[in-house]
């Protein structure tokens, strides 16, 4: 089978005001892939999506959608989109909106199927302004898939969804992906990226800092954060050879990130340090990324 390139970014940079939101990204997404772009707020994910959709023009570099400029109507006819910030004609009902969006596409799916995929069958006759936050997100999903596009872009799709809405939504995505469609979504939850995608692209400060399978990413991201107080000084050198990232100390307080905190703590006890206020917690994504970023910067240097 011929490999179709759905999205291609070549050394793309984008300056927004005084900030360089995207600082040289190369990315190729083949048709049929389910890709999650993961990163903390401000990493440049939304800007990347806007560039892929032709909503913004790159300051430099090349963006193409199915080999065409993203603003080309033929390229757009092959894409479905769910944006973070968007609105629809407020007094129209779910069914009417889906029907309207279907008319934008050359080969749409049946309206009922799009509504089912989004889990909105019960709300089909409800005006969009009367939907809850989660239902609204699912409406946007229905609008993204109703044209039966080859690729859908989902920017932070599960924001504002409760547990039930999220479950219905994820099953809709799985069903759509099972039909061989390409999915590009952004999220700042590693678990969500892991659950949905076969490939995770990690972004931080406008750069792609990792691009691998969920398994590999998980093994590289620090899982635990350890924090404690000690009256006696401790140096990072004392922990040489162990899995310790982002070692910091502030007065009596020490902290570090690690995927294997137990042997590190063992070493600290062997050093005879008196430890108080010990906390071991799951590192949040922001912290996990800091460890990935510092690795990235080391490997670049």
């Amino acid at each position, binding site marked *: 089978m011929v490999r*179709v390139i759905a999205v291609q970014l070549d050394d793309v940079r984008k300056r927004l005001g005084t900030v360089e939101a995207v600082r040289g990204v190369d990315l190729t997404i083949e*048709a049929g892939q389910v890709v999650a772009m993961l990163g903390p707020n401000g990493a440049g994910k939304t800007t990347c999506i*806007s560039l892929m*959709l032709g*909503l*913004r*023009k790159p300051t430099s570099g090349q963006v193409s959608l*199915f080999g065409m400029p993203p603003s080309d*109507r*033929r390229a*757009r*006819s*092959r*894409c479905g*989109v769910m*944006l973070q*910030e*968007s*609105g*629809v*004609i*407020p*007094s*129209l009902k779910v069914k*009417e*909106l889906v*029907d*309207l*969006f279907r*008319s*934008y*596409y*050359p*080969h749409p799916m049946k309206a009922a199927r799009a509504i089912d995929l989004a889990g909105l069958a019960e709300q089909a006759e409800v*005006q969009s302004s009367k939907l809850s936050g989660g239902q609204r997100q699912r409406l*946007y999903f229905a*609008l993204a898939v109703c*044209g*039966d*596009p*080859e690729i859908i*872009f989902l920017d932070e799709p599960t924001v504002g969804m409760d547990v039930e809405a999220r479950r219905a939504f994820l099953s809709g995505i799985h069903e759509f992906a099972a*039909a*061989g*469609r390409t999915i590009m979504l952004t999220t700042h939850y590693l678990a969500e990226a892991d659950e949905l995608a076969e490939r995770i692209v990690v972004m931080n400060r406008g750069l792609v800092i990792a691009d691998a399978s969920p398994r590999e990413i998980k093994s590289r991201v620090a899982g635990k954060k350890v924090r404690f107080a000690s009256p006696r000084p401790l140096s990072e050198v004392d922990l040489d050879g162990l899995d310790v990232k982002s070692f910091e100390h502030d007065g009596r307080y020490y902290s570090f990130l690690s995927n294997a905190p137990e042997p590190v703590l063992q070493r600290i006890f062997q050093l005879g340090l008196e430890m108080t206020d010990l906390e071991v917690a799951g590192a949040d994504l922001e912290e996990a990324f800091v460890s990935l970023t510092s690795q990235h910067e080391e490997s670049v240097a």
Partner: protein
Amino acid sequence: MSAVHAAFDSAPLPRMLWKQTQAQVVNSARIPAFSLTTILLPIMFFAFFGLSHTHETLAGSRVSIGAYLMGSFGAYAVSSAMVFNFGIGVAVARAQKLDLLQRATPLPASIAIAATVINALLFALISLLALFAFAILAGGVHLPLATWVDLTLRLLVGAIPLIGMGMAIGYAAGPNSAPAVTNLIYLPMSFASGLFVPIAELPQVVRNIAPYLPTYHYGQIAWNAIGAPTESMEEAVLALALWTVILFALAIRFFRLDQTRKFA
């Protein structure tokens, strides 16, 4: 593979325009504040200003004051549908970020704008017909059929520059300031053009300014249709054409500025 069949293809534009217009019309009809004011205000004004004079004739002509004022409020009805409903509608749609998602779909911006214009014209036509019906039944206004048709066509086609004005305001003003800005520009303009009170009764200063206003010439083509004395139609058409160029240039400029702000 089924996904490949859509390659190098896009949906037909006439169908998009039809669906988009349908959606706009349904939306307008579901907002009574929009649809009812568009239809009722001109009738109300006609009832206040016109009903007591319906049987008098205009000085120096055989046109009844009733018919004359019906022409005035017909012009008011269509122009307010363009400037108020369309202009403020555009500003509100921008605030609701309707354009953001739309822009990422294959729907061309020109089709989306055309649908809003058609919707505004349709409601303008409905309000005109309602006003005419009221003028006939309550005001005893009688005109030959050809005149009714002529008046309706003139009012709809002559409103083109005002569509440009509505669009310019819609893309320049925010959703909160749009109604105020529109009132500030459009209401004095309508008054000065003689749409509420005949021009002959306005102060000299205002009468001197009037010929520079688009609504003045718009009123002239309406009154001319029912046989009232007016400026020459060549003059009116030329002025309206000039205003069309100016107002659409402004509208396009504000539209581009808005797009650059969002999508640069």
